[in-house]
């Protein structure tokens, strides 16, 4: 990418970041997330013998849920202001291509997500240390995989908001795809079942490859079943998968956005 285009992408990303950080809804959501993570301190008391486990598990799940909600809200805020309040009219008449603008928006939302997740993760690790839990690099790899999963979620949410005529519809599709993405791996049961016809198998395979396989990023469910650290080559493979899926969504989104009438 040209240096100038990259600078403009950064400008848009910074704009998105500033707008979302100061937005009340996101701030309330963030405070709520922190409170819930802090509340895990109490929840763990209900789980004698597995207190450490419960604290960490609930913490990661909270980070994932609130991370997803934060990205949904961020995209809603930005897109609503763009289209409903016609904020985008002035911006797109400046010397910036729609692709650059779109990439800047994607980068901005990723930065917000990174900020949210980092702070929540830091708090969780602080609680873990106070509870005498031995930390290792696996905890960092789990949060990295959650971040990658949510970056994929940002990409397909932006795709839906661009394609659909209604912002709410796009959000709903994204929410359901987030759920379906975790079930994709279980499609294999149907594919390998004896009674499945070849045509159905082909359809299921197409769905399996089309849907984002979010269960690949689910390292938090595997942390107790492995010995030692998560293998780095697997982490690299899911990083490549997340990057490619996001790139595909972004290319399609930018192609649609280029032709969209504002």
């Amino acid at each position, binding site marked *: 990418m040209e240096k100038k285009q990259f600078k403009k992408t950064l400008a848009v990303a910074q704009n998105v970041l500033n707008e979302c950080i100061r937005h009340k809804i996101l701030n309330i959501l963030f405070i709520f997330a922190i409170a819930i993570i802090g509340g895990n301190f109490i929840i763990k008391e209900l789980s004698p013998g597995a207190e450490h486990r*419960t604290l960490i598990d609930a913490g990661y799940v909270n980070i994932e849920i609130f991370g997803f909600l934060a990205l949904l809200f961020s995209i809603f805020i930005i897109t609503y202001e763009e289209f409903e309040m016609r904020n985008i009219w002035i911006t797109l008449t400046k010397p910036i291509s729609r692709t650059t603008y779109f990439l800047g928006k994607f980068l901005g939302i990723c930065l917000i997500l990174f900020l949210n997740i980092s702070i929540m993760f830091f708090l969780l690790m602080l609680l873990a240390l106070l509870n005498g839990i031995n930390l290792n690099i696996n905890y960092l790899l789990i949060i990295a995989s959650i971040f990658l999963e949510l970056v994929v979620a940002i990409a397909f949410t932006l795709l839906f908001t661009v394609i659909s005529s209604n912002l709410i519809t796009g959000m709903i599709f994204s929410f359901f795809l987030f759920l379906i993405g975790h079930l994709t791996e279980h499609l294999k049961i149907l594919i390998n079942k004896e009674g499945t016809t070849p045509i159905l198998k082909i359809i299921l395979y197409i769905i399996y490859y089309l849907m984002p396989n979010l269960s690949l990023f689910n390292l938090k469910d595997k942390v107790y079943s492995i010995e030692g650290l998560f293998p780095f080559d697997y982490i690299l493979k899911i990083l490549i998968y997340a990057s490619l899926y996001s790139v595909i969504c972004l290319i399609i989104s930018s192609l649609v956005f280029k032709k969209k009438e504002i």
Partner: protein
Amino acid sequence: MFNNFFISIQEKRNIMSKYNFWLLILSIILFIFSLILIQSDNFYKLNFKEFSFSEIKQNPFYVIFSSMCGFKILVSDFLWMDIIQYIGDRNNAKTNYKELYPKTMNLITIDPNFTYAYLAVSGILMFELKEIDKAIELIKKGIENNPKYWQLNLYLAAYTYSKGGNIKMAVHNIEIAVIQEGHPPMLERILGNMYVKLSEIEKPYKDFWMEKAKNLWWYMYHHPLEELNKKYAEEHLKKYGFMKYN
């Protein structure tokens, strides 16, 4: 290579549109390739198994919910809290906590690596509810799902010994436990003592058990987990003539 002076910006943008198209095609091809690469990964093959829905008898809701959002371990944590509540409710004592075993089976079906559940519930089944067979079955399931978790082998040793005084079975399980990393040093000393006891009980196989004891003590002497183990090993090696006194 293009010379920038002779390409107008508009032409550059036309090239970029075609570039986007080919980038999309390339990304899709690489994406499918990356998915195939992941599926051939060992970690993936070992850990990303399909969930057998038929295994859940009591509550398919937990299975579906945990799968849908990827919160398997959190659901199992909540199931554990449910078991704790169940045990804590005195009313359930009237039915001899009959739901304890099915609830635990649900939990370990969702999360086979919840090791504390195997230990705690099997202990309750064994020593409080006197359901020895269920306790042993539960611990065996735990070992099957967590072969490197030495505590499970230790518990099985204790249960099999309690059930019928089967010291040989206890020894077998402790032998498995001492191979695992993180086992307590004391376990090696206990095993040594059990070998000596067996050599006294099974006189025809005395040499066999003493040979095992000797090998264990030499290992403890050369690779002690703590100083006490080395002292113990030295003491016993000298006592039984495997080491000369200075």
